[in-house]
């Protein structure tokens, strides 16, 4: 009987301690990253973590005046582990999708690659206008529509390859439905192959993916062209994943990311790691 009481008291104490801790101001947190998703995050030969996520995490922690420990974790188990309290935040190039938002909370976006087009270098589409322009479907819908209208005559009757059920696929459905013929592939590598083979005229995928894809020696004939699109249903981009109960921490991260955006840290870091600007618009 006595044991039961002690146990119950102990559990109660542990519970109040746990909930009390999350409500308090934190001075020390643990951030999880994957360490195997370059250039977002990677593990150096000496075992230390590096990459866009990691460097930015150090900046954000300095700004928030919180002591951070960054640990490497497998990507697929990260969300349950966050909710189980193994660490306090996720920075692993994780996109804030609706599905994930049902389980955890996200800070504002700290990096948006957007969706871009790629064609063969000798294709008549290689001179696609609006090169490197970035349109947001949420903040500049009208501009995005205008850009789409400008591209339509060029893409008329062309075959476009996208990954099945990707946001690029949905973008084509919503904006180019009667203009292009859409082919859906299981993986992005497969539409690269068919672009080279000439079965599709153009592909659309995440800029982050295309940037690494065109670097591959087998894809040397492919180049990225035209404008990029982001925002709205294309997703808010990479964000810090947080427990739903940690509202104070979310506010701090949002504030620090706003600062990083304002002082150009996001731009500098993304130019360093990706070679183009990831700053969300």
């Amino acid at each position, binding site marked *: 009987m006595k044991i039961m009481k002690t146990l119950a008291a102990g559990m109660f104490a542990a519970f109040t301690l746990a909930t009390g801790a999350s409500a308090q101001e934190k001075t020390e947190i643990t951030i999880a990253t994957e360490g195997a998703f370059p250039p977002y995050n990677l593990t150096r030969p000496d075992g230390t973590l590096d990459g866009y996520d990691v460097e930015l995490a150090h900046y954000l922690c300095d700004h928030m005046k919180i002591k951070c420990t960054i640990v490497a974790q497998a990507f697929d188990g990260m969300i349950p582990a966050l909710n189980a309290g193994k660490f306090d935040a996720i920075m692993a190039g994780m996109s804030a999708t609706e599905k994930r938002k049902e389980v955890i909370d996200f800070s504002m976006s700290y990096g948006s690659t957007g969706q871009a087009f790629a064609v063969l270098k000798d294709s008549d589409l290689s001179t696609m206008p609006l090169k490197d322009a970035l349109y947001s479907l949420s903040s500049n819908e009208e501009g995005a529509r205008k850009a789409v209208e400008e591209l339509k005559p060029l893409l008329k009757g062309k075959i476009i390859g996208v990954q099945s*059920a990707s946001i690029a696929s949905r973008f084509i459905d919503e904006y180019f439905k009667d203009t292009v013929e859409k*082919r859906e592939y299981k993986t992005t590598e*497969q539409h690269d192959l068919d672009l080279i083979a000439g079965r599709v005229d153009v592909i659309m995928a995440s800029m982050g993916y295309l940037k690494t894809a065109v670097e591959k020696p087998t894809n040397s004939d492919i180049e990225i062209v035209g404008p990029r699109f982001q925002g709205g249903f294309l997703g808010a981009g990479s964000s810090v994943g947080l427990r739903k109960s940690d509202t104070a921490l979310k506010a701090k991260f949002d504030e620090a990311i706003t600062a990083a955006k304002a002082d150009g840290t996001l731009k500098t870091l993304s130019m360093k790691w990706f070679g183009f600007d990831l700053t969300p618009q």
Partner: protein
Amino acid sequence: MDFVFLYETFVTLISAIPTTLQLAATSVALGTILALGLALCRLSGIAPLDWFARAYIFVFRGTPLLVQIFLIYYGLSQFRGVRRSMFWFILRDPYWCAIIALMLCTAAYSAEIIRGGLLSVPHGQVEAGRACGMSRFLMFRRIVMPLAVRQSLPAYSNEIISMVKATSLASIITIMEVTGVAAKLISETYRAIEVFIVAGAIYLAINFLLTRIVVLIEYRLSPHLRQAPSLQPVAAGEMR
């Protein structure tokens, strides 16, 4: 069970049935012609033809159809020579690549089934035909072929059914047949069980109809297994 969702899924998948049926019908039809040729090569007694057919059957029966589809679709297109050749206008099209892969594969299996059927024709009947002075072709058409078809029909119906199911592999080269549309629906709704149940039911229905048709043909081709229709008793007065 969400019956509204099941119904909507069913309506969406129905639109893909013609593609599935077309793939199966075209590849089985072309495959059978090729198979007949291969079976005749095997039985010709001419060594090079026999060995060619043996090698073909060995390769296409021994490798997975999935691998064959990948090699024909993604593999051949890697070569600049193929892309510049006169065959490219066919190989460029995912639909024809699927037909070619399915046809080549089913021909290997069907060739052996047809060969078995041809070998099962009793010698006595062939001799009887010869005794009647039939030409080789006439004998093939009237005696050997009908008997061989009857013998190989059960095994051949297996092959047709497995081809209907094999068309589902065409979805990996962007063809939107029943499985392709089902996979797309799943990635949009995350409801794998309901969608696959409906897709499975559609294949089941197609194959049910197919087996009924084969049973009907088998019935028509085997009158000798049924009791002969009883003759009208002859009136006693006419016996004389």
